[in-house]
């Protein structure tokens, strides 16, 4: 604890000297990575746990497909483990970069611009086709899924944009509502073009969520949501193949051999697990469940670890989101609050939609389970998001003593306050 305090002090000192002369590269790096406080340990623990658990489940879910397709049971494991390490390293690194550095027009629009370029490139035909959609962009050995990045970038941009606008501005339609909506619709259109329906829905919901907490008028959001739903319904109803999917989803039993094959098999996976599951690595539904290691990894968890496993998994995600929201509550400024809450919502929405699809509460539209599903892009982007969230959590104690005395203080907070009294 003392070391943390002293490092803060050192940080302040370097900052002071830095203003006098041009800082060396080393000093700049040190300043970049200097931290305001300790990360939320629970948040960090949950992220590490989920990534590790995800790797285990990806192996269990993919071993057979890997053997059949690549003659190597560890084929997918060997690719996911490096991503896990890189992801966690990235999260650690980013958790040390002050989130306020992104609160600049150049940073946020820069990220957005990159994402748009990647999305356009993917659509324009440079992309790799996978799972029936052009979602991948091969950058050397790494396959980038621009849609994953788009979700995080819109959170950052919205946080920046909304924090810039005051409460009064948010009340206006033209300034507080329309620009965000247009940006979201633009990105959504690019996602839909791939087509990536799931990401588009997540983008829209994120935008609504963040505008709502920033104080946009509920009426506008509700109106936009209703129009959006109607448009979505029309899109589905008047495209025969999409409508077939919906019908298959509604009458799963009748379509268990064709269009509803995957959700039906997923249900069988969940159900096979019953309460305690068949045991790790003993699931047999992976023989039948397509995409078991990607979008349907939760079904494998359900089969191998049972309802208990699913409940614990949900608990882990709940902890993640709760700690994220806590960071949002305690963030020192609007940008931090929006950022932390946006990222928490990003996690929450992806988890909920993914699980709902896996349990066929929603029709199947590919969406990865954060930290768990096989795939580098999703894992890295979520790790970066977790890193940002962790960094916001570092600033929590700044807010604590004065602003909210009623909040349950956690141990470091208590110690700090003693320091402050002394």
């Amino acid at each position, binding site marked *: 604890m003392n070391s943390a305090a002293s490092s803060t002090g050192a940080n302040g000192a370097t900052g002071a000297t830095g203003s006098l002369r041009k800082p060396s590269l080393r000093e700049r790096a040190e300043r970049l990575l200097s931290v305001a406080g300790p990360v939320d340990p629970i948040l960090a623990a949950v992220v590490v746990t989920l990534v590790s658990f995800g790797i285990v489940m990806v192996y269990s879910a993919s071993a057979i497909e890997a053997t059949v397709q690549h003659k190597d049971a560890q084929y997918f494991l060997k690719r996911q483990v490096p991503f896990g390490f890189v992801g966690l390293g990235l999260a650690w690194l980013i958790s040390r970069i002050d989130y306020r550095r992104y609160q600049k027009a150049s940073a946020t629009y820069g990220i957005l611009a990159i994402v748009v370029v990647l999305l356009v490139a993917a659509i324009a035909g440079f992309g790799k086709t996978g799972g029936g959609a052009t979602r991948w962009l091969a950058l050397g050995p790494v396959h980038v899924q621009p849609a994953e990045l788009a979700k995080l970038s819109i959170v950052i941009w919205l946080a920046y944009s909304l924090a810039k606008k005051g409460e009064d501005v948010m009340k206006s339609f033209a300034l507080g509502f329309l620009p965000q909506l247009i940006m979201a619709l633009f990105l959504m259109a690019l996602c839909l073009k791939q087509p990536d329906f799931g990401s588009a829905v997540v983008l829209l919901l994120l935008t609504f969520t963040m505008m709502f907490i920033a104080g946009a008028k509920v009426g506008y959001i509700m109106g936009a949501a209703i129009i959006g739903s109607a448009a979505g319904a029309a899109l589905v109803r008047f495209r025969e193949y999409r409508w077939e999917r919906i019908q298959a989803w509604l009458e799963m039993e009748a379509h268990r*051999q064709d269009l509803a094959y995957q959700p039906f098999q997923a249900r069988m996976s969940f159900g096979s697990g019953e309460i305690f599951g068949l045991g790790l690595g003993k699931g047999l539904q992976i023989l039948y469940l397509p995409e078991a290691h990607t979008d349907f990894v939760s079904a494998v968890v359900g089969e191998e670890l049972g309802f208990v496993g699913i409940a614990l998994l949900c608990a882990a995600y709940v902890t993640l989101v709760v700690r994220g929201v806590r960071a949002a509550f305690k963030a020192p400024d609007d940008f931090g609050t929006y950022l932390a809450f946006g990222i928490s919502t990003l996690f929450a929405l992806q988890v*909920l939609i993914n699980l709902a699809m896996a349990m066929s509460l929603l029709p199947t539209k590919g969406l990865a389970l954060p930290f768990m599903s096989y795939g580098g892009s999703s894992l890295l982007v979520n790790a970066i998001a977790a890193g940002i969230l962790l960094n916001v959590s570092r600033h929590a104690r700044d807010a604590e003593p004065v602003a909210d005395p009623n909040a349950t203080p956690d141990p470091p907070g208590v110690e700090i306050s003693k320091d402050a009294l002394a």
Partner: protein
Amino acid sequence: MKNIDPRRARWMKFRMGVLCGLLSTGLCSIVASAYNIQVKHGAEWRMIAERQRQKRLKVLPTRGSILDRNGEALAITIDVPSIAINAAELVRNVPEKQQPALQDAAAAKLATALNLPFPEVQAKLKSKRRFAWLKRRLSQDEITAVRAMIDPRKPDAVKGVMIEGEGHRFYPGREALWGLVGYVSGDGSGIDGVERAFDEDLRGRPDEISALRDRKGTVLFGDGLEDERALAGDDVHLTVDLGLQFQVQEDLEAGLRAFEAKSGSAIVIDPNTGEILAMASAPVYNPNDYGDAPIEARRNHAIADRVEPGSTMKIFTIAAALAEGKIKPTEEIYCENGSWTIGGVTIHDTHHEGMLAPASIISKSSNICAAKIGLLLGEQGLYSAFKRFGFGETTGLGLPGEAAGVLRARGRPWYEVEVASASFGQGISVTTLQLGMAMSAIANGGKLMEPRLVRTVTGATGQLVREELPTVRREVVPAFAARMVTEMMTGVVEEGGTGREAHIPGYRVAGKTATAQKADPATGKYDPDKFVASFVGFVPAQKPRFVIAVVVDEPWIAHLGGQVAAPIFRRIAMRALARFGVAPSGEVAKTAVTFPLEDPTPLVYAEAKAMAPDVDLTGPGGSVVAPMTAPSAFAPLPASSPSALPGAQRVIVPDLGGMGARDAAHALVSIGLLPVFDGTGSVTRQEPAPGTLLLQGSAVRVRLSPGS
């Protein structure tokens, strides 16, 4: 939110709380759904999943082959490729807009390659089902075309096409093995014959598989499963010799045709080991319809038919009496000059004899003397003797449908008259196989063997799984008694015996004829027109190699065992001797064989003619005399059936009802049929019925009665 004014902070917290509430609702529904699927209905889902796995796991291992003693295939399973499509795989990773075009293109290609109607293929591809058969049992051209189409190296390869081998059972030489080999049902389990009896060995071991199959049906993991032979069924090597079987079947069928018999069976047994070398049953039907044929048509007459054996039982009666010391081999018994009344029933002999020694009793086939010997043994003695010879119980062959036969038909010990009639084989029923096995006991010196149909069972990789060894069921009679009876039996085929037709030059033949009247099941009385003719014997008599039992049911042209069954026996015996290379003993008969004219039939003439065409058939004494210039055993034998007559055609039997004998004879002869008349007057009955198709040269039996 330190730097935010408290009112706004509270507002934001409120709004975040609202959102968190919404998210919690979502979470609750997820957890509730998980609870519903996993805890509440988990067992049901698990069952569905297990059923799915079971379905996929049920590998049908290649069924083992049935082979003859020389390794010739009698029943084999051949993988015939069939083609199926995974319509979901076909359009996997294809944008939905391009799918219809792709499906149409693939359907067109497949329809052309498989000669299927385009709309049918198109419908299957559009269904998006993961498994649909396109065509079963492809030809070589079709499979080549499809293989080229799905070659993954080609950019436009059609995806999702699966070529699967389906085992189809083939029966080379089905006609010859009618009823013996049996058949398998559609799901691959043996239904009849050897297929059923050895189903356990043949079917393979599907439940020993620990392998898993994925959704495409590929075997994934498993111990040594690269080699599918580990699962395959075992091969069953029969004792049957396919070549001999063919010949026996042919001879039996020719005999049945020649004598217009209803059905018949013939068995060749190695008496020393109990091995069944051939087992023929006739008539046979279209072998392609075997599985669909009615039960009656599939009947293996050699094991399923219970017939009254008749005189062959005298052998076992006398053997038992000799063994018991009730009679001496030289002791003469009074045969009552052909008529003897016992218990109110009069027994007749065809030959009216006075005193006869046992050897003559056998060769002359005296019922009266056999009855007297039987009575010497007594009810208990005779019954237990027959029982020891294996009558009245199944032989242990193991084929389905084997009859046990009945000794005590009324379920109580015999009365005296029944003992008497049982002594010469009346009032009891036996199977051809039982006769053969009992005769084997005489031939091998008194040991009743268990019939052996299977020599070995080998695994698919050739390793020996099981060897069935010759099994002695019991010692029936001492060797001396068996030897004595054998010597007596050789007289049957010699001059003056009832079975001269069974004589084989160069070999000593021991045998016994039998002609049993058939009882009408409705009245229980003997039908004067229906007989079972049989001949059971072995060769060479001094060192028996083959026991041959021939039973002909309801022959029409002739009915005596010596006329009907003995020639069939001779042909079969000569085939077997030649095939197994048994050298003649040098005792080539110089005596002429006479064919009695008691019941002259055109077919006996025809046969005699064919054998010695340049000899005057009407020799002195009203007998057809043919010098024994019997053809070499290796030369093709002339067929005894009318179908072998050159240029014979099928003609329709005319209606002779009411005609006089002359008109009827004219009507038949004019179209190439031979009339056999019975009685005088006008035609009251004819056999076969009008309208029947007959080969020219066949006989039509006509009964005449004085006009009313």
